């Protein structure tokens, strides 16, 4: 469950968003510049709201009035960025293992196997990120986020940097992720077709305001 009620001023731009979601995949929809990434960064703890509260799974991670701001690294979220952001000095296997190590979690070989199979990245484990295609990089980034065992997965236009062909290559993995991984997600996109396939609930943003809220049909 995710509860967001925040305000943030970024230069001339002001963002004001309030919504509650029980959905498995919340689609955050809007044109570029609508404030989607800023909103996701606030949920991730990378950006501090000027006012308001954010609660993940019932735990308050931001309550500005009460002086609460849980840092990103204590939020137990997974974040998949548009540009993957794999660590260039680590190979794929080490990238995948990073979140588990940082959180001091015991190895879970079964889960490890499951995620690697789900994303079809078993053949890439020894490679360096520089030697991966854009689509492969994004799948590894998904795996890396999942293996940190997050309670909420944030995906900020994970297909945004890929061409049409690559998008179609990754989309089925995201569908499988939604159906099998059992982690609620916030999926950011400006592509209505993508969200129709993936989201169970839509939050529509326009110029920093939530304009509609509801099922996928609000995209029509």
């Amino acid at each position, binding site marked *: 469950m995710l509860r967001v009620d925040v305000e943030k001023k970024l230069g001339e731009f002001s963002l004001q968003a309030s919504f509650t979601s029980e959905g498995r995949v919340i689609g955050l929809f809007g044109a570029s510049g609508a404030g989607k990434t800023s909103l996701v960064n606030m949920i*991730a*703890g*990378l950006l501090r709201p000027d006012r308001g509260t954010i609660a993940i799974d019932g735990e308050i991670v931001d309550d500005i009035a009460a002086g609460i701001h849980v*840092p*990103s*690294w*204590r*939020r*137990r*979220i*997974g*974040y998949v*960025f548009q*540009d993957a*952001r*794999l*660590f*260039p*000095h680590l190979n794929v296997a080490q990238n995948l293992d*990073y*979140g588990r190590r*940082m*959180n001091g979690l015991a190895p879970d070989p079964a889960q490890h196997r499951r995620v690697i199979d789900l994303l079809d990245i078993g053949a890439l484990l020894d490679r*360096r*990120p*520089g*030697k991966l295609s854009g689509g492969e990089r994004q799948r590894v980034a998904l795996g*890396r*986020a999942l293996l*940190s065992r997050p309670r909420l997965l*944030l995906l900020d236009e994970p297909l945004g940097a890929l061409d049409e062909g690559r998008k179609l290559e990754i989309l089925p993995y995201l569908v499988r992720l939604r159906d099998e991984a059992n982690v609620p997600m916030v999926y950011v996109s400006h592509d209505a077709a993508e969200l129709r396939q993936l989201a169970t609930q839509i939050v529509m943003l326009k110029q920093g305001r939530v304009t509609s809220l509801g099922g996928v049909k609000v995209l029509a």
Partner: protein
Amino acid sequence: MFEISPAEWTAILLSLRVATIATLVATPFGIALAWLLARRDFWGKSVLDALVHLPLVLPPVVTGYLLLLTFGRRGPVGGFLADTFGIVFSFRWTGAALACGVMAFPLLVRPMRLSIEAIDRRLEQAAETLGAAPWKVFFTVTLPLALPGVLAGMVLGFAKAIGEFGATITFVSNIPGETQTISSAIYSLIQTPDGDAAAGRLVIVSIVLALGALISAEWFARRATARLHGN
């Protein structure tokens, strides 16, 4: 012809020891300062930056004299260190290491700072979202990615330390076996009537050491670029 005498060996080995200690001790401070200058904005930052670079532009004899006033037996810091920890700098090889470390510091910090500045901060954010506390981000992402720059800084600092002359001779004088480094040995040799051959040999050693350092610094810099591109 090219036979290095025991006295020359003494100077060479002392130089190597002084430069090694100076580099190793200066490195953690250099990394911390490089990070501070690359990543933080604070009041007095430009003053600190200027202070770090001061030994580069100040006459070395001034730096050496200031070290003597501060770290000498009767200096405020030197007196305290001698009385409390028994660490003495004046007229000791440790003092030579201190002088070399201070003189080498600007050169040591610069590549470190540049390589930290070149790191994509979004990678550090990604590490944070994966559960890494800030100090873990530093040791698992920032430092490994900056490592070629850190090594390049150490190499340059080492090369500078091995060639340091002015501040060292001012601070700890020119005592064979204790504070006489390659540079001060050359200085003494060219002032003695038949020191030319020996001076020539030490000159060649200096050139070889300096060239080696520059070439390896260059090599580390190239490695840095490859590393940041994930190859």
